[in-house]
């Protein structure tokens, strides 16, 4: 109980003292797009469940209306992954109210059970609509109090579910929680998280993308699950206690779980999982999620809580000191 309280205090203080971007993917992540395929697609194209859920946290003291903006919500334009004909429909729905976040099914990596828990605030289905090609579509305005008040997260939470309901094309898009309807003005103190991340890797070899899971005190070890990584480069962990610890990644259309120990120093910090592209494979979509030793999912924050981690070496050498053994 005491640990839980400390954890909450840490989260709350971190959230209060950091200005986070609510762009998903964020600039820190260097991920070009999120991706969701139509439910008739092959999983080997990089989406295991044709759905993606993000939670946006709005500080309690936010009184102004907020907007959820979606970049290129349609499927069929220039950036999307079209298979044959652009026949995919994607539904974007937004939820608030009781259970939007706290319902257990909402925090699963798979869209099962009552994953659409809470109160539906808005919903729109997009198909091949050129007017939205590489354009922002704005949902809202929303009253922050329409979200679910989650004190542990320090504010009201709204849930965004992007689900491919038909077709077999890949919808590439971005999200932004904004204060303005027609431009991306971040909401001070807000953040976003997900429990399963499906995204497109950069095409250019050598580019590095990041994702930032948060490690709480409970965690002793983590399993990093990847799907359809296509062995497209390497992945490694950087933390306050790890320097480039390699992560085992999956091949094509398969899952791989990579086990890693977590030290005390890493508690209440974010890990930086770097993905370095080495192969010239284009349009590589991958899925990530992380579980702890209890198989409980850990959240990815689009802006790392506590900032991107920097490795702190434990061995220190004082210059000019000669070892007696050397004589």
């Amino acid at each position, binding site marked *: 109980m005491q640990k839980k309280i400390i954890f909450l205090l840490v989260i709350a203080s971190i959230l209060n003292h950091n200005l986070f971007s609510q762009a998903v993917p964020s600039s820190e992540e260097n991920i070009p797009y999120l991706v969701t395929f139509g439910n008739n697609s092959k999983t080997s194209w990089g989406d295991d469940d044709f759905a993606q859920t993000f939670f946006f946290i709005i500080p309690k003291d936010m009184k102004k*209306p907020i907007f959820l903006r979606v970049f290129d919500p349609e499927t069929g334009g220039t950036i999307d992954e079209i298979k044959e004909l652009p026949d995919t429909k994607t539904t974007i729905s937004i939820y608030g*109210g009781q259970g939007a976040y706290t319902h257990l099914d909402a925090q699963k990596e798979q869209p099962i059970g009552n994953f659409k828990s809470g*109160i*539906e605030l808005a*919903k729109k289905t997009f198909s091949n609509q050129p007017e939205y090609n590489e354009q922002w579509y704005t949902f809202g*305005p929303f*009253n922050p*109090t*329409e979200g679910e008040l989650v004190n542990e997260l320090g504010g009201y939470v709204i849930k965004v579910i992007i689900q491919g309901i038909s077709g077999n094309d890949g919808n590439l898009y971005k999200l932004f929680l904004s204060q303005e*309807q027609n431009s991306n003005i971040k909401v001070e103190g807000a953040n976003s998280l997900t429990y399963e991340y499906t995204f497109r890797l950069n095409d250019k070899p050598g580019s590095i993308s990041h994702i930032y899971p948060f490690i709480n005190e409970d965690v002793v070890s983590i399993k990093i699950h990847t799907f359809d990584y296509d062995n497209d480069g390497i992945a490694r962990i950087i933390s306050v206690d790890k320097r480039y610890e390699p992560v085992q990644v999956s091949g094509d259309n398969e899952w791989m779980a990579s086990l890693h120990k977590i030290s005390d120093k890493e508690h209440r910090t974010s890990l930086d999982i770097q993905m370095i592209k080495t192969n010239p494979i284009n349009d590589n979509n991958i899925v990530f999620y992380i579980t702890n030793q209890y198989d409980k999912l850990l959240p990815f924050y689009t802006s790392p809580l506590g900032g991107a981690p920097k490795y702190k070496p434990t061995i220190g050498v004082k210059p000019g000191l000669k070892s007696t053994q050397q004589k």
Partner: protein
Amino acid sequence: MIRFLFITFFGVFIFLFFTNSLLNAQQFNIKNYNINEGIAQPYVYTIAQGKLGRLWVGTGDGLSSFDGVKFQNYSTKDGLAENFVTSSFRDIDGNIWFGHYEGGLTIYDNNKFKVFSKSIAQSPISSICQDDYKNIWIGTKSDGIVKINPSSKIDHYKDLISNTSINKIHAYQHYLIVATTDGLKILENKTLKPTIQKSLLDYISITNIAPLSTDKFLIATQDEGIFQLNISKDSIYTEEIYSESSIKGLDINILFPDFDNIFWIGTYGQGISKFKYTPDQKLIKIAQYNTSNGLTNNYIKSFFIDKDGDVIMGTFGNGIEVLIDPIFTLYGKKEGLLSANANAVTSYGNALFIANDNSVVKFILKKYKLNDLSEKSQYINVVGGAKITSIISIEEDVLFIGTDNNGIWKLNLANGASERWFYSPTNTLANKINHLNKDKKNQLWVATEDGVFLFNSSSSKPINHLTMESGLLHNNIFSVFIDSRNTAWFATHGSGISNYNNKINTFPSPNESSGLEINAFTEDRKGNIWIGTYGQGIYKFDGKKVVKKYNQSNGLGSNYCYLINCDKNNNLWVGHKNGLTKCDINNENFVFYQKKDDFLVDEIINNASTEDFDGNLWFGSSEGLLRYNLNVDKPKKTGPSVIITSIELYFQKVDWKKYSNQLYTLAQIPLNLELPYDKNHFTFHVRGISFSEPDKIKYKYKLEGFQKDWSLETKEDFVTYPNIPPGKYIFKVVAANKEGIWQEVPMQFEFIILNPFWKTWWFYLITFLFVLLLFVLILKFRTRALEREQKILQEEKIKLLAEITDRKRAERKLKESEDRLKETNKELNTFIYRASHDLKGPLSTVKGLTNLGQMEIKDEASLKYFGLISDRINRLDFILKDLINIVEITEVVLQIEAINFNEILAEIKEEIHKIELPKALRLRFNIEYKNLFMGDKRALYSVLLNLLDNAVRYYNNDKTDILVIVDIADYKNGVLIMISDNGIGIPTEIKSRVFDMFFRGTDQSKGSGLGLYLVKKIVNRLGGKIKLTSLPKQGTQIELFIPSYNESIEDAHEKINYPITSME
């Protein structure tokens, strides 16, 4: 010449065409109420109006009530099921139902909140309605439909409409019309469980429903525009409605009906627009409101029009906005006029013409689109430099223009060319054109300073010229009006009323002393002619005579009326130099619009008004062109509601819970209030509810039981009543809006001021009982006391009786003694009398013998002894006589007769003279007794003789004159006798004994010693009084009073001041 007259300068006429741009001519006012003004939260989800007129604003964090001035916020602490209010509905009984975000339901019964259910559904309540059977129907976001019957039984139909959200639910007869995110569902609820009768517009998100007419509804969708739903006995179907403005593709969330087939349609994020639903089933946008022209927020989440027609919008993030669509709009240079001076105005079809000094502007009006003056043309300086006084259009593209001194001009609107059409080189008065008008034959009527000209529009040669010579009342005609019967009316000053219908007709002025100063005429919708005058107000003329008059005392803004017009609603409009008056002649209600009350203009120009094809009125003023927006001026049938906001005692707020256990929730006003006598100083704070003009409300107050009449109208929203005496009272208040329409049913509040306890019935009763008890106690006590007293008295009585008995016995003994004494006394008196009488004989014999002896005996010694014997015999004789007299006086019955004092005194004088008297003696008698005196002569003789005898015998040798005076006078029904002498007097030490028996003052006295005793006895017997006054050597005075025998002896004693035996 013609060429010269044909104006070569075409001027600058500019055709300006703008497409669909609504101009900014003073469009509307918005009042915004946000957090700073007190609203609970700026996200407004729903608005309702309570029975008392307050607005109920549901927000994401509480419920706000709003009375036009102040907000009051309520939360779960006040009885709400939740703070987040998503929907509201006022049922037929006036209760308001509030639906909440997490499925809670609250009911407000105009007094307090009650949680009907904490979670009647598992999702937000989006809509509530009531059917004809009084069932309440609740539409939820994702938990189906709930029905609550009048007995509060709940039925939840979760699966009826599953997997879809309900946006709106509307009850119609036995149908439920349900707007869902997946089409329109028509449910039939005749059976216990409702069934889906029809499913229309599938896969379309239906956002709203609004009634159009009895069996028709407008249906709003998220992307697909507006549809019309028709429900009849035989069929239910929808049809798409055309809208000239593209609302398809827009998220329509607001659809609200207004009067006259106007609908408010809001598209989320783009403000709100007003549409006219035309008879040919089209929606024409007539106005738009968004952030570019005054709204603070384009996201209108909720919408409401209150009972007074005020428009209230609930925004998402900026609280509520009250839209005040002005009933007047002012146009100036910005809109295309050439100057602020709109000196004449007329219309023809959809064209509106305005004269600006010497130029003309033409606007093409758009039906229903009040503010769209985008199409316009300007014609500059078209009258040769003169000033335009009047304009009229008789045929398309032609405008006739009257000028102040340059005759009539004709303007070709097609090419902008103008020419002087009528001008008299010889008659300058005829060139001063006051007014132009046209009749039903399209003839041109021209009012000038030289009478009236009539033209056929095709020729500038007049077909008639009416002047005083032809019968006009005056040559200077200010205006000419053509009524519905094609009769022309001429406005002149200083005379009567005249018109022309094939001939001139005149009617006398209603003012006998002066004529009518007529400026203008108009006709109302009932065919009556109305006259606007210069300084005399307005008159109603029925064709034969003036039947009504109104002036400033009735509410007219001014008696100086420069124009008069009548709108479609039969209201008169009268223009003045300082504003405009609207006259509701049906109700005799006048509203004066003037600059100081925020009216737009000051001066209305003579006869510068016209009605356009949409029924709006246009007025020319020196500050621009003014339009009265007929369709915005919603007729108000009732006055504003009034609420009591608080009640104070002695100007202090009161916690009324102390005085009543029943309080109205909002203002905490106590019910069934009874206050003690010393809590009698009341201040009532009230609020007339108006959301557009709360500062224009007027009030009237009355405290029934305290005052008879209503107070004068006032703008004060509070009233104080001090020192209210005990009694039952009803406080009443009514309010009126700016138009002067008073609410019919007053708001009232009853209360009682109790009597002080000493005036209460129970106090009276207690007092009465107390008094009664006291009386009973006193009575009892008194009775006991009396009994005790009686007992004592009884005992005393017995004692007294005993004493009385003893006394009686003693009295009896006394009486016996008395009787014995009397008897003895009588026997003694008898003895004395008989003895004296019997002795008198022998004594007389002895005296005779003695006398004889004196005559015969010569012996001096013997003579001496015979002399002594004779003296002694005489003395004895005196004694015997006196004794006899005494006995007689006491025993013998008095002989009453009329007394002559002169006789008695004469006899006494004779007797006195027998005594050896000194020569100096003077005996005087003063008899002044005039009345009749009745008494015993012999007794009086004895008294007077004895007194006089004493007076003359005891004289003073030292005096040269010896006086004895007898005065006899009347005194109080008796006689007062005074015998005065200047004799030797009586020594003080013996004065008190002179009336004793056998008392002689000296041994030398020759009397018996019984004389004064006898006098006293006699006086007593006669009931008189005697008083003796004497000074030694000075003399003696004896007063005696003897009553006449008519009076009783006791009465006689009372009338005399001195006691019986007083002596000095």
